[in-house]
């Protein structure tokens, strides 16, 4: 009987949803929202994602970097949000994510253009990432000559950088031997 008293005391507990919108709590971990204009293609989210819901890889023709997100695999941990340097991926509050008949509707993808290495001409990273780095150099307050030098460095692909530094080291090494 006491239970029935309780029922009377607390009355109707049902949420109105879906007849009225449901407000999620502050800081709710909903679907990650992607801002294409902010993405620089640094692949941090792809590396961090524990469930591989975000994959960043080259397209088949190897001329564009493709950022791919599969909402169906997302575990809403917010690692992408945490690691993104430009806030291009942020967890939103969207929970209405179900789809019917077409699984493709769960996916989102974005293409970014690639920059060529100034030495070997191979494509190695996105143009936006290079632009972002240069922009940062300026905001850090470096002088024009330093920026020039650093820009040259970041426009070289890792393979050439490695070759360059090997060359540099061996040059100094041979100098040392001569002396």
């Amino acid at each position, binding site marked *: 009987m006491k239970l029935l008293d309780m029922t009377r005391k607390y009355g109707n507990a*049902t949420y109105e949803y879906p007849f009225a919108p449901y407000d999620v709590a502050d800081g709710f971990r909903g679907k990650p929202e992607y801002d294409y*204009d902010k993405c620089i293609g640094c692949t941090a989210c792809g590396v961090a994602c524990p469930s591989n819901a975000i994959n960043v890889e080259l397209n088949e023709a190897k001329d564009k970097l493709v950022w791919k997100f599969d909402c*169906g695999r997302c575990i809403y941990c917010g690692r992408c949000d945490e690691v993104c340097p430009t806030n291009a991926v942020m967890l939103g509050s969207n929970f209405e994510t179900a789809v019917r008949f077409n699984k*493709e509707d769960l*996916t989102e993808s*974005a*293409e970014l253009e690639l920059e060529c290495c100034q030495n070997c001409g191979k494509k190695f990273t996105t143009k936006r990432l290079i632009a972002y780095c240069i922009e940062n150099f300026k*905001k850090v*307050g470096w002088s024009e000559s330093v920026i020039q030098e650093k820009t040259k460095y970041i426009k070289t692909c890792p393979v050439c950088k490695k070759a360059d530094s090997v060359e540099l080291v061996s040059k100094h090494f041979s100098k040392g031997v001569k002396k």
Partner: protein
Amino acid sequence: MSKTYVVPTEISELNRVEDKLELLKDIKRSFSVYRIDCGSCNGCEIEIFASITPMWDPERFGFKLVANPRHADILLCTGPVTRQMYYPLLRAYEAAPDPKIVVGYGACGSTGGIFHDCYSTWGGVDKVIPVDVWIPGCPPHPASTIYGLATAIGILDQKLKKVEHKDGSNEAPVIEKSVFGNTLFEREVMERARVMMGYLHGRELHKVFTKAVSSIKDIYNPVSSKKSLLEVIKKEEDPRFRECMMILHNDVYLKHLKRFKNIDKCNPAICFTKEEMELAYD
């Protein structure tokens, strides 16, 4: 890819999309759902359970859990389909009357989730049997569940659509100007804020603090900086933010200022003392 179940023609012939839409039209006001746990972590089960309680009450739309796949219109499958659950799942699938609607529930049910390539799973329900509706989430919120089932039977409209971004500019995103003329200051504020308050609240703290600092008239004068920051802090309602802003001033602002000026970091006129910090909680 290993060879798995192939749907027998007598079942697939009765399960064309038109048949399913016809069924959905018929069951709009009352539909029976049978739950199959294909090796999920139980998070999804609990949320299904929570969403059938009076708080969410899906019986308002005729949602009814049934005890037997033979009574079911909709099969609600959770979990990445473990090897051991593969056979029971197929038994239940074949037992359900045709046409049947299969729902892949949760991240695991939809795509295998974090277990998508484990040796003892098949990586999602749709790798084994045809799936019609996907409800992502890990686990899905009861509201997502209600939304998903309402979408499945066509009461609500689907909101997500496939998105493809192409041909954007090659410009870098905008970087705010630094108050010190060196963005490393803002970066360090962010880093320190995250160590104190995590990625979410830390971002907010960073915003509040940099806003406060940018409103300071003479950034190179630590005494007036402290005063104007104190004004902002007094207006802040949340004690934890108050405390963290003081720490940011001491640890990051003064450290950066030291590069321009010779100051004593422990001078109570320019830094926040221990006593002042304790006051933050009053």
